[in-house]
């Protein structure tokens, strides 16, 4: 189950994205959430990169059920490294934007005043 965590994370990210898309009118009404959307997208990108990195190395079943599959040993090469770099960059970017959003916040995100 070497890639199970990444796949689960990506799945949850997809669920969250779907939730956001389904409730986009809510996000329009809550402007204080907007600064957090980009960090979230970068997180999704990071997890997507992790999973995509694993796909060429074997089929999905192997990724999920065999932790030490033969395909896992075949990982490597520049695409894998680029995707890996993308994962770390996206995650770092997400955290940077999150920190900025927190530090730039003037009032509570829920807003007690009109």
């Amino acid at each position: 189950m070497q890639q199970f965590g990444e796949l689960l994370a990506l799945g949850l990210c997809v669920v969250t994205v779907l939730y956001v898309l389904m409730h986009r009118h809510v996000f329009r009404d809550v402007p204080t959430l907007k600064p957090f959307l980009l960090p979230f997208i970068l997180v999704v990108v990071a997890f997507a990169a992790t999973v995509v990195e694993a796909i060429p190395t074997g089929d999905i079943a192997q990724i999920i059920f065999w932790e030490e599959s033969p395909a896992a040993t075949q990982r490597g090469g520049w695409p894998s490294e680029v995707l890996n770099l993308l994962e770390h960059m996206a995650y770092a970017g997400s955290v940077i934007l999150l920190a900025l959003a927190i530090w730039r916040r003037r009032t509570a995100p829920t807003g007690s005043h009109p």
Partner: protein
Amino acid sequence: MIPKAVIIALDAVTIAFALTAGVGLLARWRRFNRASGGLLLALAVLAVAWGTANVLEWGGILPKADIAEDVFGPLVPVAWLFLFILVPEQQAKQRLRGTVDRLGALHRLATDLVTTTSPQAIMDEVVTEAARLLDLPVVAILTPDDHAGPLKVRASVGMDETTAESLCLEPNRNLSSQALGRGTPLQASLIDGPLPDQTAALVHLYGLTNAAAIPLLADGRALGALAAGRADNRRFTDAEIRLLQTLCAHAAGAIQNARLLGRVAESEAKYRAIVENAQAAIIVVDAYRHVLFWNRGAERLFGWAAEEVSDHHVDFIYPEDRRPDVIRHILPALQRDGTWSGEFPAVRKNGETFTAFFSLSRVFDSHGSVICTLGILSDVTERVRLREQLFQAQKMETLGTLAGGIAHDFNNLLTAILGSATLLRDSLTPGSDDYESATSIEQAARRGTQLGEQLMDLSRREPARVEPVNLNPIIREAVRLLRRTLPSQIELVTNLAPHLRSIRGDPGQMHQVLMNLAVNARDAMGQAGTLTIVTENVNLTDDGPFGDGIRPGPGVQLTLSDTGAGVPPDEQAHIFEPFVTTKGNEGGTGLGLSTVYAIVTRHGGRITLESAPGQGATFRILLPAG
């Protein structure tokens, strides 16, 4: 090949910013609500853990086991999902709470403003609510003394009393004046530009960073401005400005209403005072003739207090036996013409009946429906009596003149008859039938002459002779004469004032007055009774029962009372008229009392009769002392 160092550096950046985010969160915790703050902190912690695990694995310190991806990875989207679910929900709840709070405050304010009639109380409440709802340190309402005058603080929150009292903002040199002039809300940063001295002092004193001014508009006219200042370096949002505008609209309407109510109350108080203090009785009754209003004049006139008669049927002001006349005559006329005026009997609380002049008018609303009936009443009993007295005097004068004129002509004829009868009698033999006839003619002519002179007396305006006269000796002489002529069963009683004032007049005419009244009394009593003659000193007034025309001052009252049959009420009004007699065909000429009336009037006096059938009669004569 991408060096591991790059990956480790990126992870270190992740750790550093995650820590920064965490520190920022903790440092600014009050700006986040609990749910969102907790989830953001969880994301920061996960990022630190994720980065640390990666650094350790990529740095070779820990074996490569993808702990970051497998352990922390799935938690990250979970935290994000909860953040996106909870934050809007929390915010919606908060917004709802804020909206309910504001609506509650506005409702409370609107209710208070409707019931508050004091503009000052309204302004105080508005500034208090504005400061509370928007968490503002300083809020004030400023109005000009006159249309273009400087603005002065009328109500404030957060401003000390001395500052509020001394603040006087010149027109067009500050935000409030500009908002007032333009009629639109304005806001400005107090940090960016130069400020007028007074404003700068305020800004410095309260540490203000932003200000907003909202005009108080009523019927398109600006009554003043609400000025709000904040110290958190934030602009006023559109929603905040709208809220302040709503408050100002409420306040302006309420202030306008309070001012109008004040004017109405002032006007109402003025007219109420006029009506209440009017000398005349003013009564207002509803369509069912129940008393709605009863002024002090009505209280004085009728003796009923307003509380005693309120909501009572107004018929109680009429004598019971005259109430049908009200329904038969007055109400139809009022319904037909809308007004009615005239004299009508009324009754006081103590049962006393008097004549009142009624001026009644119906009051209509704009649709033509009767709201009420207004009645203005005054006591005209005295006026009616004086009018009747004047009428009587005029009638007596006219009759006297007429009778005098006729008597003069008859006297001329009688003089010729008397002269001829005397000559004829002298030429005849005494004792003969012709002589007796001539004598009868002569006697009849003499009686006719005396009657003529009596009639001519009625038309005289002045006494024949004027000298100081004391009535007591005249009365004593008349009494001596009367004792010899009156039946023995008639008792003569005198009660004469020892120091009776003298009057100026004709003693002979005064004697005639006494004799005429005494003879009338004798005729009224028949063979038995009591005749009482009283004299006394009195002070004459022109508002007494003897009416006007009499000279106020010292005077004398002569009263003759008998115990005879009395005079019926319907005859009393005509008793002093010439040729009016109650003696039928038994010898009365009807000139006795009219002669008395003429003599008394000629002497500047007045005579009245008080009598009731079977209870005798009392003649009261008032004469001015001379």
